[in-house]
Protein backbone atom coordinates (compact mmCIF):
# COMPACT_ATOMS: atom_id res chain seq x y z
CA UNK A 1 0.00 0.00 0.00
CA UNK A 2 1.26 3.39 -0.95
CA UNK A 3 0.36 6.28 1.33
CA UNK A 4 2.62 8.86 -0.26
CA UNK A 5 0.47 11.69 -1.57
CA UNK A 6 0.64 13.00 -5.07
CA UNK A 7 0.76 16.58 -3.89
CA UNK A 8 -2.28 18.59 -4.90
CA UNK A 9 -2.34 22.25 -4.00
CA UNK A 10 -0.84 21.43 -0.63
CA UNK A 11 2.06 19.46 0.74
CA UNK A 12 0.23 16.50 2.19
CA UNK A 13 3.37 14.79 3.45
CA UNK A 14 4.27 17.86 5.50
CA UNK A 15 0.74 18.03 6.82
CA UNK A 16 0.69 14.37 7.74
CA UNK A 17 3.89 14.80 9.71
CA UNK A 18 1.94 17.12 12.02
CA UNK A 19 -0.53 14.37 12.99
CA UNK A 20 1.17 11.94 15.36
CA UNK A 21 -1.71 9.48 15.10
CA UNK A 22 -1.24 8.98 11.37
CA UNK A 23 1.92 7.00 11.93
CA UNK A 24 0.09 4.42 14.06
CA UNK A 25 -0.58 0.92 12.87
CA UNK A 26 -3.91 -0.83 13.26
CA UNK A 27 -4.14 -4.60 13.40
CA UNK A 28 -0.58 -4.66 12.14
CA UNK A 29 -1.30 -2.47 9.12
CA UNK A 30 -0.56 1.24 8.65
CA UNK A 31 -3.61 3.27 9.64
CA UNK A 32 -5.66 4.54 6.70
CA UNK A 33 -8.10 6.88 8.41
CA UNK A 34 -11.09 7.58 6.20
CA UNK A 35 -13.55 8.56 8.94
CA UNK A 36 -12.82 12.26 9.29
CA UNK A 37 -16.44 13.28 8.76
CA UNK A 38 -17.27 11.58 12.06
CA UNK A 39 -14.41 13.34 13.79
CA UNK A 40 -11.10 14.61 12.47
CA UNK A 41 -7.68 13.83 13.87
CA UNK A 42 -5.81 16.55 15.77
CA UNK A 43 -2.61 18.23 14.60
CA UNK A 44 0.34 18.78 16.91
CA UNK A 45 -0.63 22.48 17.16
CA UNK A 46 -3.93 21.61 18.84
CA UNK A 47 -2.44 18.97 21.11
CA UNK A 48 0.29 21.34 22.20
CA UNK A 49 -2.00 24.31 22.77
CA UNK A 50 -4.13 22.31 25.17
CA UNK A 51 -1.17 20.73 26.91
CA UNK A 52 0.67 24.01 27.33
CA UNK A 53 -2.44 25.69 28.72
CA UNK A 54 -2.75 22.99 31.38
CA UNK A 55 0.95 23.14 32.13
CA UNK A 56 1.48 26.86 32.30
CA UNK A 57 -1.65 28.96 32.17
CA UNK A 58 -4.92 27.71 33.49
CA UNK A 59 -7.67 28.96 35.80
CA UNK A 60 -11.39 29.51 35.52
CA UNK A 61 -12.31 32.46 33.32
CA UNK A 62 -14.39 35.63 33.31
CA UNK A 63 -14.70 36.27 37.01
CA UNK A 64 -11.11 35.93 38.15
CA UNK A 65 -9.19 39.02 39.17
CA UNK A 66 -5.87 37.26 39.23
CA UNK A 67 -3.19 36.78 36.62
CA UNK A 68 -3.89 33.15 35.73
CA UNK A 69 -7.57 33.84 35.30
CA UNK A 70 -7.00 36.97 33.25
CA UNK A 71 -4.58 35.25 30.92
CA UNK A 72 -6.84 32.23 30.56
CA UNK A 73 -9.82 34.49 29.87
CA UNK A 74 -7.83 36.19 27.12
CA UNK A 75 -6.84 32.85 25.63
CA UNK A 76 -10.39 31.56 25.77
CA UNK A 77 -11.95 34.72 24.36
CA UNK A 78 -9.38 34.65 21.58
CA UNK A 79 -11.23 31.54 20.39
CA UNK A 80 -14.34 33.65 19.92
CA UNK A 81 -12.34 36.13 17.86
CA UNK A 82 -10.86 33.34 15.79
CA UNK A 83 -14.31 31.88 15.12
CA UNK A 84 -15.70 35.30 14.25
CA UNK A 85 -12.85 35.88 11.81
CA UNK A 86 -13.17 32.39 10.31
CA UNK A 87 -16.85 32.94 9.54
CA UNK A 88 -16.50 36.65 8.83
CA UNK A 89 -19.06 37.51 11.50
CA UNK A 90 -19.79 41.19 11.84
CA UNK A 91 -19.10 41.19 15.54
CA UNK A 92 -17.55 38.82 18.06
CA UNK A 93 -20.69 39.05 20.21
CA UNK A 94 -22.50 37.11 17.47
CA UNK A 95 -20.49 33.99 18.31
CA UNK A 96 -21.98 31.71 20.98
CA UNK A 97 -19.70 28.89 22.09
CA UNK A 98 -21.56 25.68 22.88
CA UNK A 99 -20.69 22.06 23.54
CA UNK A 100 -21.18 20.77 20.00
CA UNK A 101 -23.36 21.51 17.01
CA UNK A 102 -26.06 19.30 18.51
CA UNK A 103 -26.28 21.66 21.44
CA UNK A 104 -26.25 24.66 19.12
CA UNK A 105 -29.25 23.24 17.28
CA UNK A 106 -31.06 22.38 20.50
CA UNK A 107 -30.38 25.88 21.81
CA UNK A 108 -32.02 27.20 18.66
CA UNK A 109 -35.01 24.87 18.97
CA UNK A 110 -35.57 25.92 22.56
CA UNK A 111 -34.74 29.59 22.41
CA UNK A 112 -35.62 30.68 18.89
CA UNK A 113 -38.30 28.01 18.90
CA UNK A 114 -40.01 29.70 21.83
CA UNK A 115 -40.48 32.81 19.69
CA UNK A 116 -42.42 30.84 17.08
CA UNK A 117 -46.19 30.67 17.41
CA UNK A 118 -48.40 27.62 16.99
CA UNK A 119 -49.37 27.56 13.35
CA UNK A 120 -45.89 28.54 12.27
CA UNK A 121 -43.56 25.94 10.82
CA UNK A 122 -39.93 24.93 10.75
CA UNK A 123 -38.60 23.64 7.45
CA UNK A 124 -35.82 21.09 7.31
CA UNK A 125 -34.65 18.93 4.43
CA UNK A 126 -34.67 15.24 3.60
CA UNK A 127 -30.95 14.87 4.16
CA UNK A 128 -30.55 16.09 7.70
CA UNK A 129 -28.49 14.56 10.46
CA UNK A 130 -30.61 13.45 13.44
CA UNK A 131 -29.27 16.47 15.31
CA UNK A 132 -31.17 18.67 12.90
CA UNK A 133 -34.34 16.57 13.02
CA UNK A 134 -34.98 15.48 16.58
CA UNK A 135 -34.77 18.94 18.26
CA UNK A 136 -37.45 20.20 15.86
CA UNK A 137 -39.62 17.15 16.44
CA UNK A 138 -39.39 17.80 20.13
CA UNK A 139 -40.35 21.44 19.52
CA UNK A 140 -43.27 20.29 17.39
CA UNK A 141 -44.50 17.94 20.07
CA UNK A 142 -43.94 20.51 22.83
CA UNK A 143 -45.22 23.67 21.22
CA UNK A 144 -47.36 22.70 18.26
CA UNK A 145 -44.96 24.03 15.63
CA UNK A 146 -45.38 22.27 12.31
CA UNK A 147 -42.36 20.41 10.93
CA UNK A 148 -41.96 20.44 7.17
CA UNK A 149 -39.46 18.42 5.21
CA UNK A 150 -38.15 19.50 1.84
CA UNK A 151 -37.62 16.48 -0.43
CA UNK A 152 -34.37 15.74 -2.19
CA UNK A 153 -33.79 14.48 -5.71
CA UNK A 154 -32.44 11.10 -6.73
CA UNK A 155 -29.04 12.71 -7.21
CA UNK A 156 -29.19 13.74 -3.57
CA UNK A 157 -29.70 17.45 -4.14
CA UNK A 158 -32.22 19.72 -2.53
CA UNK A 159 -35.41 19.98 -4.61
CA UNK A 160 -35.48 23.76 -4.93
CA UNK A 161 -38.92 23.86 -6.53
CA UNK A 162 -40.37 21.97 -3.62
CA UNK A 163 -38.40 24.22 -1.29
CA UNK A 164 -40.06 27.31 -2.67
CA UNK A 165 -43.49 25.68 -2.62
CA UNK A 166 -43.09 24.71 1.02
CA UNK A 167 -42.35 28.33 1.86
CA UNK A 168 -45.13 29.77 -0.24
CA UNK A 169 -47.80 30.11 2.45
CA UNK A 170 -45.52 32.28 4.59
CA UNK A 171 -45.95 30.10 7.63
CA UNK A 172 -42.38 28.94 7.84
CA UNK A 173 -40.62 30.96 10.53
CA UNK A 174 -37.31 29.17 10.33
CA UNK A 175 -35.51 27.10 7.74
CA UNK A 176 -32.97 24.81 9.39
CA UNK A 177 -30.98 22.99 6.80
CA UNK A 178 -27.66 21.32 6.32
CA UNK A 179 -24.97 23.15 4.40
CA UNK A 180 -23.35 19.83 3.53
CA UNK A 181 -24.74 16.33 3.93
CA UNK A 182 -22.65 14.02 6.08
CA UNK A 183 -23.90 11.05 4.02
CA UNK A 184 -24.16 12.24 0.44
CA UNK A 185 -21.47 14.88 0.45
CA UNK A 186 -23.97 17.26 -1.15
CA UNK A 187 -23.27 20.93 -0.61
CA UNK A 188 -26.58 22.78 -0.58
CA UNK A 189 -27.04 26.07 -2.46
CA UNK A 190 -26.79 28.27 0.61
CA UNK A 191 -27.11 31.64 -1.11
CA UNK A 192 -30.27 30.64 -2.94
CA UNK A 193 -31.72 29.04 0.17
CA UNK A 194 -31.26 32.30 2.06
CA UNK A 195 -32.68 34.41 -0.75
CA UNK A 196 -35.77 32.29 -1.21
CA UNK A 197 -36.35 31.89 2.54
CA UNK A 198 -35.97 35.60 3.21
CA UNK A 199 -38.30 36.41 0.36
CA UNK A 200 -40.93 34.38 2.19
CA UNK A 201 -40.21 35.87 5.60
CA UNK A 202 -38.33 32.91 7.03
CA UNK A 203 -35.02 33.07 8.88
CA UNK A 204 -32.30 30.59 7.97
CA UNK A 205 -30.12 28.42 10.19
CA UNK A 206 -27.43 26.27 8.60
CA UNK A 207 -26.06 23.08 10.08
CA UNK A 208 -22.51 23.64 8.91
CA UNK A 209 -20.95 20.73 10.81
CA UNK A 210 -19.53 19.29 7.58
CA UNK A 211 -19.40 22.36 5.37
CA UNK A 212 -17.06 24.39 7.55
CA UNK A 213 -14.44 21.68 7.24
CA UNK A 214 -14.33 21.98 3.49
CA UNK A 215 -15.31 25.53 2.58
CA UNK A 216 -14.64 29.09 3.65
CA UNK A 217 -17.84 30.33 5.26
CA UNK A 218 -18.77 34.00 5.04
CA UNK A 219 -21.92 34.55 7.04
CA UNK A 220 -22.22 38.16 5.97
CA UNK A 221 -21.93 37.34 2.28
CA UNK A 222 -24.40 34.47 2.75
CA UNK A 223 -26.65 36.75 4.80
CA UNK A 224 -27.80 33.73 6.79
CA UNK A 225 -29.34 34.42 10.17
CA UNK A 226 -27.72 31.57 12.07
CA UNK A 227 -24.92 29.14 11.36
CA UNK A 228 -23.87 26.25 13.61
CA UNK A 229 -20.91 23.89 13.60
CA UNK A 230 -18.80 21.68 15.79
CA UNK A 231 -15.13 21.90 16.74
CA UNK A 232 -14.01 18.29 16.64
CA UNK A 233 -14.63 17.92 12.91
CA UNK A 234 -12.44 20.95 12.16
CA UNK A 235 -9.33 19.35 13.70
CA UNK A 236 -10.22 20.80 17.12
CA UNK A 237 -11.02 19.03 20.38
CA UNK A 238 -14.33 17.49 21.37
CA UNK A 239 -16.54 19.46 23.73
CA UNK A 240 -16.91 22.70 21.80
CA UNK A 241 -19.40 23.91 19.22
CA UNK A 242 -20.40 27.17 17.64
CA UNK A 243 -23.61 29.05 17.03
CA UNK A 244 -23.39 32.21 14.99
CA UNK A 245 -26.45 34.44 15.10
CA UNK A 246 -27.16 37.94 13.87
CA UNK A 247 -26.87 40.16 16.86
CA UNK A 248 -30.38 41.62 16.84
CA UNK A 249 -31.85 38.13 16.65
CA UNK A 250 -29.68 36.78 19.47
CA UNK A 251 -30.72 39.77 21.55
CA UNK A 252 -34.39 39.01 21.04
CA UNK A 253 -33.98 35.36 22.03
CA UNK A 254 -34.49 34.20 25.61
CA UNK A 255 -31.64 32.32 27.27
CA UNK A 256 -31.54 28.53 27.05
CA UNK A 257 -29.57 27.19 30.03
CA UNK A 258 -29.47 29.06 33.34
CA UNK A 259 -26.57 29.36 35.73
CA UNK A 260 -23.28 31.07 36.34
CA UNK A 261 -21.82 33.47 33.76
CA UNK A 262 -25.06 34.05 31.84
CA UNK A 263 -26.69 36.39 34.35
CA UNK A 264 -26.53 40.08 35.00
CA UNK A 265 -28.15 39.84 38.44
CA UNK A 266 -29.90 37.15 40.41
CA UNK A 267 -32.53 37.40 43.10
CA UNK A 268 -35.05 34.73 43.97
CA UNK A 269 -37.83 36.79 42.44
CA UNK A 270 -36.17 37.67 39.20
CA UNK A 271 -32.92 37.32 37.38
CA UNK A 272 -31.66 39.43 34.51
CA UNK A 273 -29.43 38.23 31.75
CA UNK A 274 -25.97 39.16 30.64
CA UNK A 275 -25.46 40.68 27.21
CA UNK A 276 -25.03 38.42 24.17
CA UNK A 277 -23.25 36.11 23.68
CA UNK A 278 -22.82 35.41 27.40
CA UNK A 279 -26.59 35.16 27.89
CA UNK A 280 -26.35 31.80 26.12
CA UNK A 281 -23.26 30.51 27.89
CA UNK A 282 -24.16 29.09 31.29
CA UNK A 283 -21.57 27.64 33.62
CA UNK A 284 -17.86 27.15 33.25
CA UNK A 285 -17.25 27.27 29.51
CA UNK A 286 -15.17 24.81 27.47
CA UNK A 287 -11.95 26.64 28.35
CA UNK A 288 -9.36 24.13 27.23
CA UNK A 289 -11.51 23.29 24.25
CA UNK A 290 -11.66 26.95 23.24
CA UNK A 291 -7.90 27.14 23.41
CA UNK A 292 -7.65 23.99 21.30
CA UNK A 293 -10.20 25.23 18.78
CA UNK A 294 -8.34 28.51 18.37
CA UNK A 295 -5.20 26.55 17.56
CA UNK A 296 -7.15 24.44 15.06
CA UNK A 297 -8.59 27.50 13.34
CA UNK A 298 -5.21 29.18 13.11
CA UNK A 299 -3.83 25.98 11.67
CA UNK A 300 -6.60 25.69 9.07
CA UNK A 301 -6.28 29.35 8.14
CA UNK A 302 -2.54 28.92 7.64
CA UNK A 303 -3.19 26.18 5.10
CA UNK A 304 -6.02 28.14 3.55
CA UNK A 305 -9.42 27.01 2.35
CA UNK A 306 -8.43 27.35 -1.30
CA UNK A 307 -5.74 24.73 -0.92
CA UNK A 308 -8.02 22.57 1.22
CA UNK A 309 -10.84 22.72 -1.31
CA UNK A 310 -8.54 21.95 -4.22
CA UNK A 311 -7.01 18.98 -2.43
CA UNK A 312 -10.41 17.70 -1.51
CA UNK A 313 -11.69 18.01 -5.04
CA UNK A 314 -8.84 15.84 -6.28
CA UNK A 315 -9.59 13.29 -3.54
CA UNK A 316 -13.29 13.13 -4.35
CA UNK A 317 -12.69 12.88 -8.07
CA UNK A 318 -10.21 10.09 -7.55
CA UNK A 319 -12.47 8.26 -5.11
CA UNK A 320 -15.49 8.47 -7.40
CA UNK A 321 -13.43 7.22 -10.32
CA UNK A 322 -11.83 4.35 -8.45
CA UNK A 323 -14.91 3.18 -6.58
CA UNK A 324 -17.21 3.44 -9.59
CA UNK A 325 -14.86 1.15 -11.44
CA UNK A 326 -15.39 -1.65 -8.90
CA UNK A 327 -18.17 -3.97 -9.93
CA UNK A 328 -20.99 -4.11 -7.43
CA UNK A 329 -20.13 -0.84 -5.76
CA UNK A 330 -23.05 1.55 -5.73
CA UNK A 331 -22.33 5.17 -4.86
CA UNK A 332 -25.11 6.99 -3.01
CA UNK A 333 -25.33 10.67 -3.85
CA UNK A 334 -24.31 12.24 -7.11
CA UNK A 335 -24.67 15.93 -6.37
CA UNK A 336 -22.88 18.40 -8.60
CA UNK A 337 -21.53 20.43 -5.72
CA UNK A 338 -20.03 18.13 -3.14
CA UNK A 339 -17.47 17.80 -0.37
CA UNK A 340 -15.12 15.08 0.79
CA UNK A 341 -17.60 12.40 1.77
CA UNK A 342 -18.43 9.34 -0.33
CA UNK A 343 -21.12 6.85 0.71
CA UNK A 344 -21.45 3.52 -1.02
CA UNK A 345 -22.85 0.05 -0.76
CA UNK A 346 -21.49 -3.23 -2.04
CA UNK A 347 -23.76 -5.78 -3.64
CA UNK A 348 -22.30 -8.83 -1.92
CA UNK A 349 -21.79 -7.63 1.60
CA UNK A 350 -23.56 -5.67 4.27
CA UNK A 351 -21.95 -2.32 5.07
CA UNK A 352 -20.97 -3.50 8.57
CA UNK A 353 -19.12 -6.45 7.14
CA UNK A 354 -17.44 -4.20 4.62
CA UNK A 355 -16.28 -1.89 7.39
CA UNK A 356 -14.96 -4.74 9.50
CA UNK A 357 -13.10 -6.33 6.62
CA UNK A 358 -11.58 -2.99 5.66
CA UNK A 359 -10.67 -2.42 9.31
CA UNK A 360 -8.86 -5.75 9.24
CA UNK A 361 -6.69 -4.17 6.57
CA UNK A 362 -6.10 -1.03 8.64
CA UNK A 363 -8.64 1.06 6.75
CA UNK A 364 -11.14 2.98 8.89
CA UNK A 365 -14.48 3.76 7.27
CA UNK A 366 -17.85 4.25 8.91
CA UNK A 367 -20.86 2.03 8.29
CA UNK A 368 -24.43 2.41 9.38
CA UNK A 369 -27.19 4.96 9.06
CA UNK A 370 -24.80 7.83 9.84
CA UNK A 371 -27.38 9.40 12.13
CA UNK A 372 -29.57 10.01 9.12
CA UNK A 373 -32.21 7.28 9.16
CA UNK A 374 -34.84 9.14 7.16
CA UNK A 375 -32.28 9.84 4.43
CA UNK A 376 -31.41 6.13 4.31
CA UNK A 377 -35.10 5.42 3.89
CA UNK A 378 -35.26 7.89 0.99
CA UNK A 379 -32.76 5.68 -0.86
CA UNK A 380 -34.25 2.41 0.37
CA UNK A 381 -31.18 1.58 2.34
CA UNK A 382 -30.57 0.48 5.91
CA UNK A 383 -26.98 1.51 5.93
CA UNK A 384 -24.06 2.46 3.77
CA UNK A 385 -20.32 2.45 4.15
CA UNK A 386 -18.80 5.90 4.09
CA UNK A 387 -15.28 7.09 3.35
CA UNK A 388 -14.58 10.67 4.31
CA UNK A 389 -11.49 12.76 3.86
CA UNK A 390 -9.43 15.31 5.71
CA UNK A 391 -6.54 17.57 4.71
CA UNK A 392 -4.22 14.73 5.56
CA UNK A 393 -5.88 12.20 3.25
CA UNK A 394 -3.81 11.02 0.29
CA UNK A 395 -4.69 9.66 -3.11
CA UNK A 396 -2.71 6.59 -2.08
CA UNK A 397 -5.13 6.03 0.79
CA UNK A 398 -8.02 6.10 -1.65
CA UNK A 399 -6.20 3.52 -3.74
CA UNK A 400 -5.83 1.44 -0.59
CA UNK A 401 -9.57 1.70 -0.04
CA UNK A 402 -10.32 0.64 -3.60
CA UNK A 403 -7.90 -2.28 -3.38
CA UNK A 404 -9.35 -3.23 -0.02
CA UNK A 405 -12.86 -3.22 -1.44
CA UNK A 406 -11.72 -5.46 -4.24
CA UNK A 407 -10.45 -7.94 -1.68
CA UNK A 408 -13.69 -7.75 0.29
CA UNK A 409 -15.67 -8.41 -2.83
CA UNK A 410 -13.52 -11.38 -3.75
CA UNK A 411 -13.68 -12.65 -0.21
CA UNK A 412 -17.47 -12.65 -0.27
CA UNK A 413 -17.32 -14.42 -3.63
Amino acid at each position, binding site marked *: MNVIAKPAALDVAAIRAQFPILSQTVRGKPLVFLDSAASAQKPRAVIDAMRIAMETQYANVHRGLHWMSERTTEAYEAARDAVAALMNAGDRSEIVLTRNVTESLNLMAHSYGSLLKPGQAVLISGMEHHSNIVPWQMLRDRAGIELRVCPITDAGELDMDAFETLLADGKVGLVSITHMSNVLGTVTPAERIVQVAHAHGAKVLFDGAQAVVHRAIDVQALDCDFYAWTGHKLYGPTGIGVLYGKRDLLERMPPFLGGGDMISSVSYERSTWAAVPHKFEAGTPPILEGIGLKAAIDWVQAIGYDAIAAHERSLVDHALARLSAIEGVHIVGRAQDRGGVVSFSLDR*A*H*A*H*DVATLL*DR*QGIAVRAGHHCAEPLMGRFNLDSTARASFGVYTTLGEIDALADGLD*RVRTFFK
Partner: protein
Amino acid sequence: MSDSFDDLRDLYQEVILDHGRHPRHGTRLAAFDATAKGDNPMCGDRVQVWLAYGPGETIAQAGFEARGCAISVASADLMAETVAGRSKTDARALFAAFREMARTGTCPACEASLSEPLDRLAPLSGVHEYPSRVKCATLPWHALIAALDGADKEASSE
Protein backbone atom coordinates in the same frame (compact mmCIF):
# COMPACT_ATOMS: atom_id res chain seq x y z
CA MET B 1 -0.56 -6.93 -0.37
CA SER B 2 -1.06 -10.60 0.50
CA ASP B 3 -3.13 -12.66 -1.87
CA SER B 4 -4.45 -15.04 0.71
CA PHE B 5 -7.33 -14.00 2.93
CA ASP B 6 -5.82 -15.31 6.14
CA ASP B 7 -6.00 -11.93 7.77
CA LEU B 8 -9.71 -11.62 7.03
CA ARG B 9 -10.58 -15.11 8.21
CA ASP B 10 -10.09 -14.68 11.93
CA LEU B 11 -13.57 -13.26 12.16
CA TYR B 12 -15.23 -14.38 8.95
CA GLN B 13 -14.67 -18.11 9.04
CA GLU B 14 -16.14 -20.18 6.25
CA VAL B 15 -19.04 -21.35 8.37
CA ILE B 16 -20.03 -17.76 9.07
CA LEU B 17 -19.84 -16.76 5.45
CA ASP B 18 -21.90 -19.80 4.60
CA HIS B 19 -24.62 -19.33 7.22
CA GLY B 20 -24.61 -15.59 6.55
CA ARG B 21 -25.24 -16.14 2.87
CA HIS B 22 -27.51 -19.17 3.06
CA PRO B 23 -29.30 -19.27 6.38
CA ARG B 24 -31.17 -22.54 6.93
CA HIS B 25 -33.66 -21.14 9.41
CA GLY B 26 -34.18 -17.68 8.02
CA THR B 27 -37.95 -17.85 7.81
CA ARG B 28 -40.92 -17.02 9.95
CA LEU B 29 -42.53 -20.16 11.45
CA ALA B 30 -46.02 -20.82 10.15
CA ALA B 31 -47.13 -21.95 13.60
CA PHE B 32 -45.36 -20.55 16.63
CA ASP B 33 -45.77 -20.14 20.38
CA ALA B 34 -43.62 -17.07 20.94
CA THR B 35 -41.94 -14.32 19.00
CA ALA B 36 -39.90 -11.22 19.74
CA LYS B 37 -37.93 -8.57 17.93
CA GLY B 38 -34.42 -7.39 18.54
CA ASP B 39 -33.04 -4.05 17.53
CA ASN B 40 -29.57 -2.56 17.58
CA PRO B 41 -30.18 1.18 17.51
CA MET B 42 -26.53 2.02 16.98
CA CYS B 43 -26.23 0.28 13.66
CA GLY B 44 -29.76 -0.40 12.51
CA ASP B 45 -29.66 -4.22 12.65
CA ARG B 46 -33.04 -5.77 13.28
CA VAL B 47 -34.10 -9.35 13.83
CA GLN B 48 -37.30 -11.18 14.68
CA VAL B 49 -37.31 -14.64 16.20
CA TRP B 50 -40.17 -17.16 16.22
CA LEU B 51 -40.30 -20.18 18.51
CA ALA B 52 -42.43 -23.28 18.45
CA TYR B 53 -42.42 -25.14 21.76
CA GLY B 54 -42.29 -28.89 22.12
CA PRO B 55 -43.30 -31.26 24.91
CA GLY B 56 -42.00 -30.43 28.35
CA GLU B 57 -40.16 -27.18 28.57
CA THR B 58 -38.42 -27.50 25.23
CA ILE B 59 -37.99 -25.50 22.08
CA ALA B 60 -39.04 -27.61 19.14
CA GLN B 61 -38.08 -25.21 16.41
CA ALA B 62 -36.80 -21.70 15.87
CA GLY B 63 -36.92 -19.41 12.87
CA PHE B 64 -35.97 -15.82 12.23
CA GLU B 65 -35.99 -12.91 9.87
CA ALA B 66 -33.00 -10.61 10.00
CA ARG B 67 -31.99 -7.40 8.38
CA GLY B 68 -28.33 -7.04 9.06
CA CYS B 69 -24.80 -8.10 8.49
CA ALA B 70 -23.31 -11.54 7.87
CA ILE B 71 -22.42 -11.90 11.55
CA SER B 72 -25.92 -11.30 12.81
CA VAL B 73 -27.54 -13.50 10.20
CA ALA B 74 -25.01 -16.29 10.77
CA SER B 75 -25.43 -15.98 14.50
CA ALA B 76 -29.21 -16.14 14.23
CA ASP B 77 -28.97 -19.17 12.02
CA LEU B 78 -26.48 -21.02 14.22
CA MET B 79 -28.62 -20.12 17.22
CA ALA B 80 -31.77 -21.49 15.61
CA GLU B 81 -29.91 -24.65 14.70
CA THR B 82 -28.47 -25.03 18.19
CA VAL B 83 -31.52 -24.39 20.36
CA ALA B 84 -33.89 -26.59 18.38
CA GLY B 85 -34.76 -29.58 20.52
CA ARG B 86 -33.24 -28.16 23.72
CA SER B 87 -34.87 -27.19 26.95
CA LYS B 88 -35.66 -23.56 27.60
CA THR B 89 -33.30 -23.67 30.56
CA ASP B 90 -30.49 -24.92 28.36
CA ALA B 91 -31.21 -22.18 25.86
CA ARG B 92 -30.85 -19.56 28.56
CA ALA B 93 -27.64 -21.07 29.87
CA LEU B 94 -26.34 -21.26 26.33
CA PHE B 95 -27.03 -17.58 25.84
CA ALA B 96 -25.06 -16.70 28.98
CA ALA B 97 -22.15 -18.86 27.84
CA PHE B 98 -22.29 -17.55 24.30
CA ARG B 99 -22.34 -13.98 25.44
CA GLU B 100 -19.27 -14.60 27.55
CA MET B 101 -17.54 -16.21 24.61
CA ALA B 102 -18.47 -13.37 22.25
CA ARG B 103 -17.11 -10.83 24.67
CA THR B 104 -13.92 -12.55 25.74
CA GLY B 105 -13.19 -15.25 23.20
CA THR B 106 -13.54 -18.10 25.67
CA CYS B 107 -15.83 -19.26 28.43
CA PRO B 108 -13.67 -20.98 31.03
CA ALA B 109 -16.47 -21.21 33.59
CA CYS B 110 -18.92 -22.72 31.13
CA GLU B 111 -20.73 -25.89 32.13
CA ALA B 112 -19.30 -28.99 30.54
CA SER B 113 -22.78 -30.02 29.48
CA LEU B 114 -22.83 -27.07 27.08
CA SER B 115 -19.57 -27.86 25.39
CA GLU B 116 -21.08 -29.60 22.40
CA PRO B 117 -23.54 -26.85 21.41
CA LEU B 118 -20.94 -24.20 22.26
CA ASP B 119 -18.54 -25.81 19.84
CA ARG B 120 -21.07 -25.22 17.14
CA LEU B 121 -21.18 -21.51 18.06
CA ALA B 122 -17.42 -21.23 18.48
CA PRO B 123 -16.75 -19.82 14.99
CA LEU B 124 -18.40 -16.63 16.23
CA SER B 125 -15.99 -16.21 19.10
CA GLY B 126 -13.73 -14.14 16.85
CA VAL B 127 -16.03 -11.15 17.36
CA HIS B 128 -14.46 -10.50 20.73
CA GLU B 129 -11.67 -8.70 18.92
CA TYR B 130 -14.22 -6.39 17.31
CA PRO B 131 -16.19 -5.03 20.26
CA SER B 132 -18.67 -3.15 18.11
CA ARG B 133 -19.58 -6.39 16.36
CA VAL B 134 -20.30 -8.33 19.55
CA LYS B 135 -23.77 -6.86 19.49
CA CYS B 136 -24.33 -8.22 15.99
CA ALA B 137 -23.64 -11.71 17.29
CA THR B 138 -25.72 -11.41 20.46
CA LEU B 139 -28.70 -9.55 19.03
CA PRO B 140 -30.60 -12.68 17.89
CA TRP B 141 -30.05 -14.21 21.32
CA HIS B 142 -31.52 -11.16 23.01
CA ALA B 143 -34.57 -11.58 20.84
CA LEU B 144 -34.69 -15.29 21.70
CA ILE B 145 -34.63 -14.56 25.41
CA ALA B 146 -37.28 -11.88 25.00
CA ALA B 147 -39.47 -14.45 23.21
CA LEU B 148 -38.87 -16.98 26.01
CA ASP B 149 -39.77 -14.32 28.56
CA GLY B 150 -42.92 -13.60 26.64
CA ALA B 151 -41.86 -9.98 26.73
CA ASP B 152 -43.89 -7.75 24.49
CA LYS B 153 -41.26 -5.07 24.44
CA GLU B 154 -38.48 -5.07 21.90
CA ALA B 155 -35.15 -6.42 22.98
CA SER B 156 -32.11 -4.32 22.41
CA SER B 157 -28.61 -5.63 22.19
CA GLU B 158 -27.29 -3.07 24.66
